[in-house]
């Protein structure tokens, strides 16, 4: 199992490195969205709940770009069949894909969050960076798991991009909700407030539950 996941993961990262299909697009999209927010809100700096909202809505939409691309190579180049023919545990695909998306999101945030701090954020990013990173990581897990599931559901359909967005947005509302609530005190002017534990708990529970659900149903998406 572990070696299968490693093989899949190596393949995913090599492919992304070769084609540079998802991550650069996600980064550019995020930065462009900040610019749009700047004009849309007509503000030079955002603070607190507004900052958290802008940050996570942008990341969510950028993630959807990545989710749309997730299984395209598998679907179009026979990767699904190749994988299904091999004597391996099918859950490895779920784990490898979710990990890949998680990595992509982390890389995107490495650029997008500093860019956000530079372009829009009022208080300095450094005032609560460790807590913010924790919120980001928990959010990424949730988006990665749900995104993999949604991408798997949509890949065989004709209107793939449409279905991905329609499914992912409602399913990820609790993640965005919890993440923005958790991050609001971190992005306040005049020093960061405490990290709200209950929202972190909600995020963690959501991640865990959806990981279990994905584990239970993902095999059915790979058959036939």
């Amino acid at each position, binding site marked *: 199992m572990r070696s299968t996941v490693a093989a899949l993961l190596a393949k995913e990262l090599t492919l992304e490195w070769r084609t540079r299909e998802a991550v650069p697009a996600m980064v550019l999209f995020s930065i462009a969205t900040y610019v749009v927010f700047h004009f849309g809100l007509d503000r030079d700096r955002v603070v607190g709940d507004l900052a958290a909202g802008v940050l996570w809505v942008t990341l969510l939409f950028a993630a959807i770009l990545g989710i749309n691309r997730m299984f395209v190579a598998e679907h179009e180049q026979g990767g699904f069949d190749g994988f299904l023919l091999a004597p391996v545990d099918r859950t490895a695909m779920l784990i490898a894909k979710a990990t890949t998306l998680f990595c992509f999101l982390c890389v995107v945030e490495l650029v997008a969050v500093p860019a956000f701090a530079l372009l829009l954020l009022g208080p300095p990013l450094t005032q609560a960076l460790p807590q913010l990173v924790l919120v980001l990581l928990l959010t990424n897990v949730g988006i990665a798991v749900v995104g993999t599931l949604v991408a798997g*559901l949509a890949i065989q359909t004709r209107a793939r991009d449409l*279905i991905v967005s329609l*499914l992912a947005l409602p399913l990820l509302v609790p993640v965005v909700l919890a993440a923005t609530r958790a991050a609001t005190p971190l992005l306040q002017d005049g020093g960061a407030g405490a990290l709200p534990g209950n929202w972190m708990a909600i995020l963690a529970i959501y991640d865990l539950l959806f990981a279990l659900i994905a584990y239970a149903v993902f095999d*059915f998406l790979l058959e036939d």
Partner: protein
Amino acid sequence: MLTGAFALVFFYAPLDVDQGFVQKIFYVHVPMALVALVGFIVGGAFAVMHLRTRESKWDMRSYVAIHLSVILAVGVLVTGSIWARASWGHWWVWDEPMLVSFLIVFLLYATYWPLRFALEDKEKQARYASVFAVVAGAFVPLNFAAVRMAEQYIHPQTGATIAGGLPPKMALTFVVALAGMSLLFVTLCKYELASKHATYRLRALRRRLAGDDDELTLTGRSAAPQL
């Protein structure tokens, strides 16, 4: 039953002190919401059965449960916003967790049909729809928990106080209305299932009459499951 319930609603239940006549919408709105939510979860449970047994009848049941629940959900959103207008003065109230959760759940389930329709192979359609129904069914309670946590609680505490907080006359009316709504739901499910069966049988017979008992007579793509 439902007629009886409506009779009770109008003639038996006392007027609410604060809210007056509009409060009566409560007897429609809340049972509808509860039945729709249970319907979503039941649809998910049927979908689990379909994934386990691969029998198309479970997919059909899941489909019907979700179909009717979505219709009820529209009713819930409409009656909810009428009620909100009457008691709080706005058609839509964002700090109202039940209504917001319901909207999110409704948006999610509205994708059920595009998803089904976008898959051509019937078997695959059934399987993917079932996966969707399971995921969404699990999402329903989770979503309510999260949204409820987010908003301060101004919704009339109907769910929690069915047994205790209501005056007995209201409670009786409510229980009767809930039972009526559940019965209506079950009856509609049965009716829709029967009609789907009949359509399918009819088509099979037509094919038989046409003389080709196995060649394909595709009837156009559809989002509805087939047996």
